[in-house]
């Protein structure tokens, strides 16, 4: 059951071979055993999970089960969960119990999914390694000396180590795709506006988007279907009919299931900077896609190299404002001793926020300041439009774009913490997708020289999630990278 696909779990639950309570208990016990080493969870909600599992069992007994009823899952700890601690990986919210559920959480509750707990993350989703967590780094199940990626590192580690079959995450500059790649699982970030941001603690509002983690594309699909959908409480939520993202997956595979699919390979994603072992795995995966009928074509994203500088203006600018509400006045951390009001603000925020968060607040405050706004913020917005234009032009020549998710496999804990710019560069292939608001996916496609997973990134045009999942699924039907498990998870 630990390694079973959602399809198998669904069948077992529906056939009453296992109850939801038993399934939840199985995973809760695994978390209890493995979490001290992995630090994937900040909060484990055993009581809440068992109560939800009992309710799910009743629903199953009543014949009212949906695809996720009784399925255990984990939420990234920036989705607000009513009555459960929601820390966002920060000391600032170490005492914050949300009085309401995020839209995503409410949707999954309504679907009957069983939340096991809240997963570790880089503080306020700022980071690429999960080392920026007040609760300590989450660790990579393939090698606990390595990072699991970030910012949704805890969710990725939990799914990779089979502490939960599926998990939610968020992706602002690659925070779903990159940790999925580094931990050998599948992760999808949909088109901006597909998943409501209501109750998702904001990092950079114009880039933040909820996403799904699972072992396979097939298992990501029902999770994404449950998370997505119009929500009037989020003004950037797109008013579109609900979609079943698994709708293309059931068709028979055949020999050439991807016949005619044009895969664009951006020259900029295959230049220097990509590690040799990553390149080898990605090239092999592309050869496999061709074997399945796909055609690869070269495309250009000439402005993609500007994605990182544009991102590190826009995201900190929005973050500096989004994080102003954490002032110690109404909730969250307040310094024990302070003089006047200003001193309370300064001490509470100095104590409550970690180094990287402070760095981005400072950068964001600077680029929005009088006299600098035009030179930085407006220029970055222009770059953003140019990058989106590049993708538009590329999608005139291809159906989807493929390349590496991350330039390297997972690195050692502590290896890059003294060099923020090196850390920022690890998101070089993912960030442009957020700036353009496009959907992207990462799936495992092999292992590097050090035995750590390599991810293949697929990028689609707006609202092409079902096609992206289908392409990834056809590859996974023909390969077994997504079935590989780290030691201890098998």
């Amino acid at each position, binding site marked *: 059951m630990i390694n079973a696909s959602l399809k198998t779990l669904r069948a077992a639950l529906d056939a009453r071979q296992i109850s939801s309570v038993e399934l939840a208990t199985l995973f809760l016990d695994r978390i209890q055993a493995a979490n001290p080493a992995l630090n994937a969870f900040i909060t484990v909600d055993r009581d809440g999970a068992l109560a939800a599992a009992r309710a799910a069992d009743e629903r199953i007994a009543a014949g009212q089960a949906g695809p996720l009823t009784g399925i255990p899952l984990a939420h990234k700890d*920036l*989705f*607000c969960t009513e009555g459960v601690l*929601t820390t*966002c990986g920060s000391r600032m*919210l170490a005492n*914050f119990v*949300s*009085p*309401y559920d*995020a839209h995503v959480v409410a949707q999954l509750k309504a679907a009957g999914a069983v939340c096991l707990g809240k997963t570790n993350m880089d503080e306020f989703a700022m980071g690429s390694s999960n080392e920026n967590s007040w609760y300590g780094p989450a660790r990579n199940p393939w090698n606990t000396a390595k990072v699991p990626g970030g910012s949704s590192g805890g969710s990725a580690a939990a799914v990779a180590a089979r502490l939960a079959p599926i998990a939610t995450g968020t992706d602002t500059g690659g925070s779903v795709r990159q940790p999925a790649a580094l931990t050998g699982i599948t992760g999808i970030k949909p088109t901006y506006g597909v998943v409501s*941001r*209501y*109750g*998702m*603690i*904001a990092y*950079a*509002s*114009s880039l933040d988007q909820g996403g799904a983690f699972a072992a396979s594309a097939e298992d990501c699909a029902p999770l994404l279907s449950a998370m997505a959908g119009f929500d*009037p*409480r*989020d*003004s*950037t939520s797109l008013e579109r009919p609900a979609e079943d993202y698994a709708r293309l997956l059931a068709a028979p595979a055949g020999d050439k299931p991807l016949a005619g699919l044009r895969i664009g390979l951006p020259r900029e994603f295959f230049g220097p900077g990509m590690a040799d072992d990553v390149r080898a795995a990605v090239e092999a995966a592309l050869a496999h896609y061709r074997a399945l009928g796909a055609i690869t074509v070269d495309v250009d994203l000439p402005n993609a190299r500007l994605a990182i500088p544009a991102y590190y203006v826009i995201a900190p*600018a*929005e973050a*500096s*404002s989004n*994080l*102003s*509400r*954490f*002032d110690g*006045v*109404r*909730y969250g951390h307040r310094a024990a001793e302070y003089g006047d*009001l200003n001193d309370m*603000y300064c001490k509470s925020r100095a104590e409550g926020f970690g180094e990287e968060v402070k760095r981005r607040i400072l950068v964001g*405050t600077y680029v*929005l*300041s*009088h006299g600098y*706004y035009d030179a930085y*913020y407006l220029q970055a917005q222009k770059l953003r439009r140019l990058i989106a234009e590049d993708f538009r032009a590329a999608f005139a020549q291809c159906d989807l774009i493929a390349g590496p998710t991350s330039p390297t496999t997972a690195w050692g804990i502590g290896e890059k913490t003294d060099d923020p710019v090196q850390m920022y560069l690890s998101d070089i292939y993912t960030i442009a997708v957020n700036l353009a608001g496009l959907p992207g996916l990462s799936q495992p496609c092999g292992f590097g020289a050090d035995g750590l997973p390599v991810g293949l990134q697929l990028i689609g045009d707006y609202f092409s999630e079902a096609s992206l999942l289908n392409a990834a699924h056809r590859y996974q039907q023909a390969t077994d990278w997504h079935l590989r498990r780290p030691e201890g998870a098998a």
Partner: protein
Amino acid sequence: MSRTDWEVVIGLEVHSQLNTASKIFSGASTAFGAEPNAQASAVDIALPGVLPVLNRGAVERAVRFGLAIGATVAPKSVFARKNYFYPDLPKGYQISQFELPVVQGGAITIRVGEGDKAYEKTVQLTRAHLEEDAGKSLHEDFHGMSGIDLNRAGTPLLEIVSEPDMRSSAEAVAYARALHALVRWIDICDGNMQEGSFRCDANVSVRPRGQEKFGTRREIKNLNSFRFLQQAIDYEVQWQIERLEDGGTIQQATVLFDPDSGETRMMRSKEDAHDYRYFPDPDLLPLVISEEWIARVRSELPELPEAMKARFVADFGLSAYDATTLTASKEVAAYFQATVDAAGKANAKLCANWVMGELAARLNKAELDIAASPVTPAQLAGMVSRIADNTISNAIAKKVFEALWNGEGGGSADAADQIIDQQGLKQVTDSGAIEGLIDEVLAANPKSVEEFRSGKEKAFNALVGQVMKASKGKANPGQVNELLRRKLQA
């Protein structure tokens, strides 16, 4: 140098609270006077993860205002964040509009002064933009601490900014009054100044008359009565002139008016001014207002004061002065219109005289709003009709009005008739009866008759007075005149 060498320059920023039932970005009630924080929702408190959703009712009111002042209603405007820290500003930023406001340009005609010195002037508006109000800090009742009430946080405001077109405190007050009347006229604001629904900031500077360049301005914040507005500007102008005449300079600053001392005092200098780091709010899409929406709002607008004024002059033959007075407020205009509707267009001038004269005086003395007048428009019209058809004289009408004011006559529309009947106030127009009275008076006043005949016209008036007295005021004065002169000259 004498005072007249200086020219005063004033521009006003008015915060007008829009009378929507719920807040501008949340569903919480805007009703005044609830227990602290009873009307603060998750959005108003700025819990982590919450998002704003724009209230269309607030937008519609802004559109109504824009159309009423002949401004451009922007087809696309943008909400921006104004960032600063204060405990009653829960998000650490105020959602406002900066570069692209919803209302652009427009003008208001004001009437300044009384009698012969009265003049009209057109004040140009710069813009009007939508924004949310902050909460309130309560500094009393909390030992060594401050209380925060967020009921007002998120209340919709329309900030209306004028050009620096006003040249005296009288013009500033006239403009503020005209604006106050207009926002109530078009029913976008209740205008309650005590409750802070209409607050003025005045930008004041002085310059030597004839100089083109504006002097350095100081902004007087938060004036919540017309009297304070006048006092504050007068004090500030005097202060600036004295300072300049003493060889000093004016520094740009924000000042507060202390009604107790009648003085303005510095709150912060330009150097201390915040850098608000405005940028477009990524949580809200640009506000798009369609032609159809504007057309619908236009079709639903009530007749505006300027149009009504012109109609009163053209249709009712009123003077421009009377028309202006009667359209100074929506309530007065409505009362007058209802009175004319009942009394007939031919009696409009008479109605105007009574509404502006006796009624206004009595209401003023009793400190009542016209909407609370004990005399209804129908009752006043009933009385005016009796003056017009000679049933009563103007002098008797004052008695009837007094009786109406005191609730006599049964309170119905024909109350005036009831009073006239019951108190026998009907004018005597029977020539025979009047001649009888004249004969008695002539017989009793031979001396006056003698004086008249010897050429003293004054004696005639005395005789008229005697006849009127004998009729207890009920004889028709015109008839008395005519019949008396005929008899004396016979």
